[in-house]
């Protein structure tokens, strides 16, 4: 009888132990999953901050590397595609920028951040309406005529557009697949490079407000 009681007690104890262990495992699994979720959020936040830092770092690097570079009038082939044709003859870049003390250039690449480019086009149009005395030109690198037509239609582009093949501008490689803007004087000297980012619209506004003053 005594032996059986001990056996039953052992059995109850093992069942209780099993239940407690299961509860603890369940509890710790839940805690680990909550922690994993928090780590995931933290990782996202760190990635965001890293992205911001990378962006500023890129701006700073281009500011230091690229200043007072001259566009070579003989080497850069430019095609006027403002009017409906993809068969325009090539013209010299000097004939576009030589007419004005300063010109603001949008170097548009079809690969890359579409929303950043759209925002830039909107801001450029606003700047042009407000200050028509600073000429704005777009140098685009479309490889398909269809894509260009749609870009022009959707963006309601109303400033002159020229086709310049990718990597034909000496600083294209420094901007990889980003569209960028810069100021160029009538001697072809390019300054004030900036990569607009739709994530920081205030910075884009700040750039355009100040570039107008410089361009005068």
């Amino acid at each position, binding site marked *: 009888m005594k032996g059986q009681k001990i056996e039953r007690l052992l059995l109850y104890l093992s069942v209780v132990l099993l239940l407690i262990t299961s509860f603890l495992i369940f509890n710790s699994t839940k805690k680990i999953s909550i922690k994993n979720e928090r780590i*995931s959020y933290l990782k996202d936040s760190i990635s965001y901050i890293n992205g911001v830092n990378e962006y500023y770092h890129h701006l700073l690097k281009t500011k230091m590397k690229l200043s007072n570079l001259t566009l070579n009038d003989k080497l850069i082939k430019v095609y006027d595609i403002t009017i409906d044709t993809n068969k325009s003859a090539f013209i010299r870049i000097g004939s576009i920028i030589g007419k004005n003390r300063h010109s603001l250039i949008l170097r548009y690449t079809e690969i890359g951040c579409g929303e950043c480019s759209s925002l830039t086009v909107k801001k450029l149009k606003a700047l042009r309406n407000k200050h028509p005395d600073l000429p704005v030109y777009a140098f685009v690198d479309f490889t398909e005529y269809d894509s260009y037509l749609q*870009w022009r239609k959707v963006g309601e582009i109303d400033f002159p557009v020229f086709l310049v093949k990718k990597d034909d501008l000496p600083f294209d490689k420094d901007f990889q697949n980003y569209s960028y803007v810069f100021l160029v004087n009538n001697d072809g000297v390019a300054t004030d490079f900036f990569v607009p980012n739709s994530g920081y619209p205030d910075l884009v506004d700040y750039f355009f407000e100040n570039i107008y003053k410089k361009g005068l």
Partner: protein
Amino acid sequence: MTSIFPTHYKRSLWLLCLVLNILYSCKNQKDTDIIDKYTTIQVNNKSLTDTLDLSKMIDSVGLIRLTDAPQKSLAKINQLYALSDYYIAIDPVNTKRVNAYTKSGIYVKTLLENGPLKTDALNVTDCYVNEKNEVIIYDYAQMKLTVYDSHLKIIKVVKGEKLFNYSHVASLPGSDKFVGYSNFNGYNAVVQNDAKNPSSLDILDSTLSLSKKHLFYPSKFGEITLVTLPKSFFPFKNSLHFFRAYDPYVYSLNKDGIERRYKIIYSNGNVPSDFLEKIVAPNLHAFNNIGRDPSSHQVVSSAFAGYTCFTNWLETNDIIYLSSTSFTDKTFDNFNSIIYKRDKKSAVLSAKVFSDNSKFKLTFPSFNAYDKEKGEFLTYCTGNRLKKYLHPNSPLVKQEDIVDDSFYLIKVRFKRG
């Protein structure tokens, strides 16, 4: 000798072990619930003709221009659908909006677009029209679905509690559930608290919570980038067809389950069924870094060179229209096939492009959609492209009347039988 435990306790313990074992097995049950019930379709792509004249098979060809919508234009059409009274077009890349047009091409309204308002989307990436002619628009960034009826009125808006990421979302016929497809996305598995078991096809309940997972893959492939098709779902009768680029099967889903319905075998460049281990695994670093490292792009292109996979699937009671792509080292070649369902052995017509050389005189771009009510296959192109597709003296439109930067729909009805 007396036993440690009485017999009835022993039985209970065995029963407990058995139940736990069954529960564990159910938890780890993977693709075994996909039923194999497929018909094999052989596509001969070894010596493709450039152009195949389908004049004798064509009943009618129609052409309409989609009118421009001021401030609401689309820069590209990625998916096209036909309702009873409307066409639906989505541009998820450039303008991020979904537009509706009448059947004569007049712009009606923008159903949804990205914008700052609460009613706007954060990131419109996908659209789907189901068997009930409901339009389902997927806002990727908010895991939110907006469902419209066939008159373009909002029926419901569903926002998931967890932010799963899918490439395409569709509704599951005969139920209030949804189906989400993500190519290779380890993130989803983490959000599902099941990081070790990533899956490509998930069944979601009416609140967009995870209900069931299908098409599992090893977690080491959770970060790879592979071709995602513009659309992966097609409603057919009371089922939902699902297809993806490198998988030879077309799956059929409904409320009762999932089955492999068709298997496509190309005579040239069939993607091996173990392509993840055979093609991807030896180049895993490149497949993981294709967006970050330019040299990876070449490695991935070379790895897939020589293989063929399908890119779109349209099905009627009589025919299947299949678009396919063969990858080369630097580019790819598209071709199209028409498969007659009644006569499985000999009725597969394939060519790089189909055309009508007799009556309507034009070359057809690949068809993108099927209008089940009118029995028409649909495709779209810009006016600039249309000029190239039309042969001289085509009765459809005069060259000088074509607007280069407008979109045109080409509608083709095949003869029956």
